[in-house]
């Protein structure tokens, strides 16, 4: 008899472990998705190069660890301002030119950017798999029948903190309000005297800083290679659509849902099924609640 189908008192450890895995995997997805939901939600740009900035963050952590023996958590202090600058630069050089163009043009541009960045990484650092192995990546925490990795717990904690900070920033600061206003109606915002170009630049820079830092944080958990970003980026679109565009808390909850579907689906039905489950969920949300599970005005206009 398949033990996966018998849930009795002896299975409490299993339930505890699946719950812990869901939460921790959800943390990693949230970390990647918050930057995307910001750019997607406010600029209405589908950034296909999102995964490549994640990859660049992973390489930053790798080189800092290999050359200077810097722990990824220290690199975080460098990565946030560094990726903010990178984001600003890419916005000025690439995104500004297509911000008013059609979605097709934006998609071609960001896919082009994605391919270019992957190949730059391939040429500069070869296609080899690289590893970051700080002391905390092999520390195992055991509690109440569940076991997890310290690096994963830290990634989750930071994801939670980051989500809260962005949520607070969007909700309670003037700039945040201005960003939301721009997201809801770009033309009206312009009429109110908002410099939308500056807002977009800021949004893109914050989004890239988030995803770059996410790359640094997950580097102890996953191997670093030029196409590492592709492993996560498709999922973050599902998360963003589930949670509602530009909704930080929605992204967090969406991440937990996707991770839960993945973990529980893999356990009960087999790994081969997990993508079917969350893409059915994805299509379901698009059909029945196009604004996301928690809704946001204006999201429907995106026409994803």
């Amino acid at each position: 008899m398949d033990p996966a189908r018998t849930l009795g008192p002896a299975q409490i450890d299993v339930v505890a472990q699946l719950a812990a895995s869901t939460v921790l995997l959800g943390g990693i997805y949230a970390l990647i998705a918050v930057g995307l939901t910001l750019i997607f939600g406010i600029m209405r740009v589908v950034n296909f190069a999102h995964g490549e900035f994640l990859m660049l963050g992973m390489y930053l952590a790798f080189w800092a660890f290999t050359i200077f023996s810097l722990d990824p958590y220290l690199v975080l202090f460098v990565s946030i301002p560094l990726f903010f600058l990178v984001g600003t630069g890419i916005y000025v050089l690439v995104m500004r030119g297509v911000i008013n163009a059609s979605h097709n043009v934006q998609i071609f541009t960001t896919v082009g950017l994605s391919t270019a960045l992957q190949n730059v990484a391939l040429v500069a650092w070869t296609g080899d798999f690289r590893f970051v192995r700080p002391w905390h990546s092999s520390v195992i925490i055991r509690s109440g029948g569940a076991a997890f990795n310290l690096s994963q717990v830290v990634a989750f904690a930071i994801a939670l903190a980051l989500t809260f900070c962005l949520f607070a920033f969007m909700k309670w600061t003037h700039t945040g309000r201005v960003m939301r206003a721009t997201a809801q109606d770009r033309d009206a915002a312009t009429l109110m005297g908002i410099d939308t170009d500056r807002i977009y630049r800021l949004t893109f820079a914050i989004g890239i800083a988030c995803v770059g830092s996410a790359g640094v944080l997950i580097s102890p958990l996953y191997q670093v290679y030029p196409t590492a970003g592709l492993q996560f980026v498709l999922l973050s679109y599902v998360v963003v659509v589930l949670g509602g565009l530009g909704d930080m808390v929605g992204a967090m909850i969406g991440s937990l849902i996707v991770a839960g579907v993945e973990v529980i689906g893999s356990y009960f039905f087999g790994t081969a099924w997990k993508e079917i489950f969350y893409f059915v969920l994805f299509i379901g949300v698009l059909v029945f609640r196009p604004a996301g599970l928690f809704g946001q005005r204006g999201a429907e206009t995106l026409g994803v």
Partner: protein
Amino acid sequence: MRMRAAIALVLAATLGLALAGPRLQAQPALSGEYKIGVLEPLTGSLAFEGKRHMDAYEVMRDMINAQGGVMGKKLVFAVGDATDPTAAASEATRLITREGVKIITGTYSSTLCGAASEAAARANVIYWETSCVDPRFSQRGLKTVFRTEIDGTGFGWYNIQFIAKHLAPRFNMQPNQLKVAFLSEDSSYGQGVTESARRRAKQEFGMQEVAAEYYAFASTNDFTPIVVKFKQLNPDVVFHIARGNDAVLFWRQSREQNFLFKALVHAGATGYGSADFGKALGNDGNGPFVLAEPSAGLKLEMFKPEAQKMEREFGEAIKARSGDLPLASHRLAGSGLWLLKVVLDQAKTDELEKFRSTVLSLDLPVGSMLNGWGVKFAENGQNANERVQHYMLQWQNGQMVTVWPEEFTSIRAKWIPLGPWDQRK
């Protein structure tokens, strides 16, 4: 008018000569040369590996010529660039019709060998494959195709052989008492190896299959659910075909979950078979078995004297050319081409019926070829699993070392059964 006629005559003559040119070249027998077609991907995404095969063919061709050539003639190549399946088929046709070859060898990749050999078979030309592992290659009932390497199902065959003949006795168990959990990435390679292993494990040894799971390696970010499930099923052996990152992730998360099994067995140069596995995990990666080409520990003296001599000569020539010791791909191509010489010398002709009966009558024991293989072809043109000796390697202290078959190696397998995770140093 006369002028025009003269020009037309000159043009026609030139054209005639141009067309006749290749045909003139196609009669090398008169000049003491014997030409075969060599098809490898020399440009494009597969070229990286194709060039290694080509290097090995050229090194082996020179060795053959230094030892009397083939059928007393100098062996020469007509080379075709098989970038993709379409090019493989059209280049095969070109080699046959324009270069007039009666034998084609190549093409290393499983994506190419099917198309190339199909084209050769249509023209009734012998196709001598030295490397591709697609099982379908030898299942098409073609009388003109032969393969010196085992196919993907052979890897599954060997892994089960190792589990039944080596691991089971060391666990003090009968093969039919063993519980095996199968886990594999879902490419055609992973599925081919795993399915053939499942069949042999069940039908021949009556092993108990407790799970069979496939996953997409590029989008699996967490193996915990599988590890938790396997932990409850309590298998003795985990049969895992991995592709890259998935090997490291599964192994690391098994350790986190304190999932204890007696052995893990993999096949191929990816996943556990890649040097990256050791780099990522160091001593924490000690224990997994990998079916691959031999590495440290191999006892060369177990080969036949002539095979030892050839292995050394070939190794030096490859090193002089590429700066490195021969890789698996070099050995596959080199020994495959040598075997073709052996067949041609015995058959004394490239005429299909005679060639085929010579191939089928060859019976060389393990240790006869430069990579330690033996030869015994089946009716379908496939060299036998038992003769195409593959080796089991194990990760020991951050290095993959040869541990099986024991008579061919000086190093012994450790940690059988694996035991607690922190006691594998």
